């Protein structure tokens, strides 16, 4: 097996006295899509925030073999980590194009590279190209998610962490966005996908972790997880799905 791109070992994260992530270990190989599923409040968002450096944590965090502790969020961005947070955190009063350009801020691109990256993002999301001079806060939910994803891609990340990309979106748009996520792997981007929508997550990943109350309850290849009786009962609606 090749060396892991991201290695999380016995990670603990607390809000004051309350521990939200209690000893999670997870690893992700280059080019892999790994999903983390679990109920609301399981600690999925907290896990991503700590990996990005937005929250302090204890345990091991390694990216391409380098210890991430001691690096702040901005330094992790420079290393190639990128988080598309649950709340998207767009710059609402800036235009779509400004949001995208700022996505590459840490890379200090020259004008022509910047232009090429913009074009490639617009090629992935033609809808953003149509709305390039519109303010980000005037976009619909699906378009905002595309912008958040596009802004992340502008930094050409090595590891893209997506927090509930399907949240609040119509199924059709979720499909569209996840189809794009799958194509990113071909460009050498590894993906850590956090989802409450277990079916979507397992269908679109190689490996899966089930997080419950801050601990890993189950993990394994996504296809095996999707066939697991407990996962089916708890997260896939007991296999009685009809859509």
């Amino acid at each position, binding site marked *: 097996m090749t060396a892991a791109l991201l290695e999380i070992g016995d990670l603990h994260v607390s809000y004051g006295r309350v521990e939200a992530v209690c000893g999670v270990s997870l690893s992700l190989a280059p080019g892999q899509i790994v999903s983390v599923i679990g109920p609301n409040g399981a600690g999925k968002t907290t896990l991503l925030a700590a990996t*990005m450096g*937005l929250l302090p944590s204890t345990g091991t965090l390694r990216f391409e073999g380098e210890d991430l502790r*001691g690096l*702040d*969020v*901005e330094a992790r*961005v*420079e290393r190639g980590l*990128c*988080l598309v*947070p649950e709340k998207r*955190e*767009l*710059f*609402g*009063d*800036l235009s779509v194009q*400004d949001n995208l*350009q*700022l*996505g*590459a*801020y*840490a*890379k200090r691109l020259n004008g022509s590279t910047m232009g090429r990256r913009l074009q490639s993002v617009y090629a992935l999301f033609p809808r953003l190209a149509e709305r390039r001079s519109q303010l980000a806060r005037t976009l619909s939910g699906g378009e905002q998610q595309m912008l958040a994803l596009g*802004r992340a891609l502008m*930094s050409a990340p090595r590891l893209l962490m997506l927090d509930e990309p399907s949240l609040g979106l119509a199924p059709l748009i979720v499909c569209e966005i996840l189809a794009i996520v799958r194509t990113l792997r071909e460009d050498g981007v590894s993906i850590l996908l956090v989802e409450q929508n277990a079916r979507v997550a397992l269908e679109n990943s190689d490996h899966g972790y089930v997080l419950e109350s801050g601990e890993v309850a189950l993990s394994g290849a996504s296809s095996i997880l999707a066939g697991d009786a407990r996962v089916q009962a708890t997260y896939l609606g007991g296999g009685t799905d009809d859509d």
Partner: protein
Amino acid sequence: MNWDVALILTVGGLATGSVYLLAGLGLVLIFSVTRVVFVPFGDIAAFAALSLAAFETGTTPPTIGLVLTLASLAVVAELWQLMRRRELARMPRVLMVWGLLPALPCLAAWWVTGRNLPAIAGIVASILLVVPIAPLIARIALRPIADASVLVLLIASLALHFLLSGLGLLFFGPEGSRTHPLVAGATTLPGGFPVSMQVLLMIASAIVLSGLFYLLFERTLHGKALRATAINRVGARLVGIRPARTAALAYGGGSLLAGLIGVLIAPVTTIYYDSGFIIGLKAFVAAIIGGLASYPLTALGALAVGLVESFASFWSGALKDVFVFGTLIPVLLLRSLLASRIEEEEEEIDE
């Protein structure tokens, strides 16, 4: 009042309004990025004016001592932080940024002193000399409480103003000074109306600088990064923008504007160590008109404040400030009406 008087008052009002405009831009710049109402802004302008006066008399400007004192405090604060985080390896960088960088304009000022250089050398040196002041005092006193509420930040900022004007008294003494005009003479407008070149220079500076401001914020990635930090701090960090660095840039930009104001007003009024406060206060009125967020509205507000002050001082010199600050009442009323309406609309959208 006849037309000639009205014209004189208008031109005078626009000239003072230009000063408030530059100060207002500085205040909005700093507030939008850091949420700090930067009260010591005017003090820094006064220090630039007093530095220019010192250059003219051939004495070393006491500002050098002030800047070096602040720089030493900032270095101590940084080293203390490094020690607590056990990151002493980053010491050389800290010494460079917080020790050496602020010392450079001091060195330049010291070199300029007493030499028979053209007046512009003293002007540039005075402006550059005050640029480190805002970033330094912000590093010392405001960064440690950067996440506090706007009110706490305002109180800290007010305390900094008193500290700075105290240091001003210590370093500059109680005497006031006035400098030679930056540009001499007068010109006549079409219609035979005379205006001094100094007044034209003030108005022209405001126009040119607001143009530059616009270009910086609308056209450059770093300008957009400043705005992005103001709009969404977490979002900014996630794309690799360091809020502490943007804040230092905003303070530096504000300080630079204060320096420009200082040398622009030095020839037209006698400046004392504590003259800056009232300029800052009136620019604050303009910034409030702009909601502490909009540059164009702040600019308009500043010109309005200048005009109100000019006309009010014609009717009653004693009451001019009453008129200026009195305009705050209708502005605040209108603002709170608009704000509640916007909130209602947003609630409707949420539903």
